[in-house]
């Protein structure tokens, strides 16, 4: 195996490991630790999917920073959401839901190197299946695609941007109180 292929393989492992570690933090309810993985300028965006005509697929998803989305926010709001989860009186999550993030189909689509030629930023595509089980028999399954921008800061990967494309039109869950 040549050096380039080996480097790509190692980078893939590193990124995959990061995303799986991130999922563990969420599923272990370590939300403050999860928040620390987000850059201060993170864009965390989850548009709505619309049913559109064949030649109008450009309008399928509502637009970032333009239209109504499920979620279209930055670090400040993510911080508020984490604080709300920590109050213990956020009824939608009290008692807390059981959540599992299954993250698959991880693929690095672009690598931006720093001055020394090491990866500074990567574009990553993945799929998620987020299973939420709450109280005795309430179940929600959220499935979709993610497009992430991960940035290396002080030697560690951080999430600088996350686009979340949920494969639903009418949201079939009564609310969204978890992160994707």
């Amino acid at each position, binding site marked *: 195996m040549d050096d380039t292929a080996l480097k790509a393989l190692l980078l893939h492992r590193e990124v995959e490991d990061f995303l799986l570690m991130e999922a563990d933090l969420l599923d272990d309810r370590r939300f403050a630790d999860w928040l620390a993985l987000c850059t201060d300028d993170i864009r965390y965006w989850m548009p709505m999917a*619309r049913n*559109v005509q064949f030649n109008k697929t450009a309008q399928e998803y509502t637009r970032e920073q333009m239209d109504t989305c499920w979620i279209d926010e930055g670090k400040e709001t993510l911080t508020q959401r984490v604080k709300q989860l920590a109050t213990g009186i956020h009824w939608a999550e009290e008692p807390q839901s059981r959540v599992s993030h299954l993250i698959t189909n991880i693929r690095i689509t672009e690598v931006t190197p720093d001055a020394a030629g090491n990866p500074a930023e990567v574009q990553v595509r993945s799929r998620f299946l987020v299973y939420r089980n709450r109280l005795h028999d*309430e179940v929600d399954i959220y499935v979709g695609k993610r497009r992430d921008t991960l940035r290396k800061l002080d030697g560690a990967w951080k999430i600088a941007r996350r686009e979340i494309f949920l494969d639903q039109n009418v949201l079939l*869950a009564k609310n*969204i109180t978890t992160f994707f």
Partner: protein
Amino acid sequence: MTITPDMYERLVNIKTGEISREIFVNEDIYAQELERIFTRAWLLVGHESLIPNPDDFFVSRMGNDSVILTRDRQNTIHVLLNSCMHRGMKVCRYDQGNTRAFSCPYHGWSYSTDGRLVEAPGQLVGVPGFEEHYRCELDKKAWGLVRCPNVVNYKGSIWASWDENAPSFEDYLGDMRLYLDAALDHRDGSEGGSEVIGGVHKWRVKCNWKFAVENFIGDHYHNISHRSVDLVGIGPSAGRGRRDMESTGSFQNIIIGFPALGHGVIGHLPRYEEPPYAPAYQRHPAVQEYDRQVYEARVKRLGNKMRVATGAASIFPNMSFHGRQPRTLAVFHPISATEMEMWRFYLVDKDAPQEVKDVLRHYYLRYSGPGGMTESDDMENWMYASEASRGTIARRHPYNYQMGNGYAKPVEGLKGAVQGGDTTEENARILYNRWAQFMAGKSWSELMPAQTA
């Protein structure tokens, strides 16, 4: 359950303030609601800004029917039943868009945006095989899409009723109209001038649809639902809470209801001046500046004319709105006795600077909708209230609606309105009393005595 005509008076006992849980969980009663309320009452279908151009369409719902809101080529707005007249196929399966015709994918019947079967020469459009198979004997004019007989564009919001004998929308609203105006009018006090931000929140909640209507109609009592978000503080100014201050001095939020009509609001009593300017949006200088500008314009424009201010409100049967923060129109579509589909449209001044619209949109999204930090907790309460009311023993025990019963008094300046102070269940009683009247199958002259007298 055997449904008898006098049943609803027993289920909804306004005098004692006791309302049976059956009306929130019983599928037979639910089926009657679809017939007796949703085929008669005025329902919110959408907003004109969703269909700005000829041949634009937006698919909506009325009760459990799918309907298409259209603007035809003559700029007339229609509400059409979204079901082919031939075999019932949904002729439009998109959420919104623009089309010359709705062409049924089953056998090809095609309808223009005014609902009529296309009358073009040749057999490719309209009714395929019109000459050969139907021998030109099909009466195309009689087989257009079912058109809703009453459609109104009220300051941009589109309403419809299936009942040809329904009173006019303005009569149906009564003086509640003033509060709807306060949501739909421009912040500078001029008429209309609002638009819907692109994209409509639609989501399912396993609760009876009336829980949401009741929540909006004047439930100041449910603040504990939102304690977590109040602790965190998500308002547009600094500090705790989820909104800017809205009540000062004599400009208090009061529970105001319309007993003869079934509508209600948390709003200000009628007044003839603007309250002193209360700084809002303090974390967003551009919005604060806009807020001050429109306040000053409002003072000038409205002078000493009567006006109101509105918070949360409901219009019977299943529409709610908020006139301030977050400024929205909402509809609670019935899915079953214990499930609804909630829709939320978010409103901004059409000509507001983009920066203002952006701040408002972000605020609306962190407050409202399924991802909203405030609303997510409401839905937990509505869902498990519905679930815990389904039990056999539970159903034997009514809900308690006794708060403030008998203390409501007339409101000066508003025809047929009563107010019960800042915290009362008067508006819930008004809502369910109206519900019982519709469910008893009363005629319009009985339902609208003031108008027909």
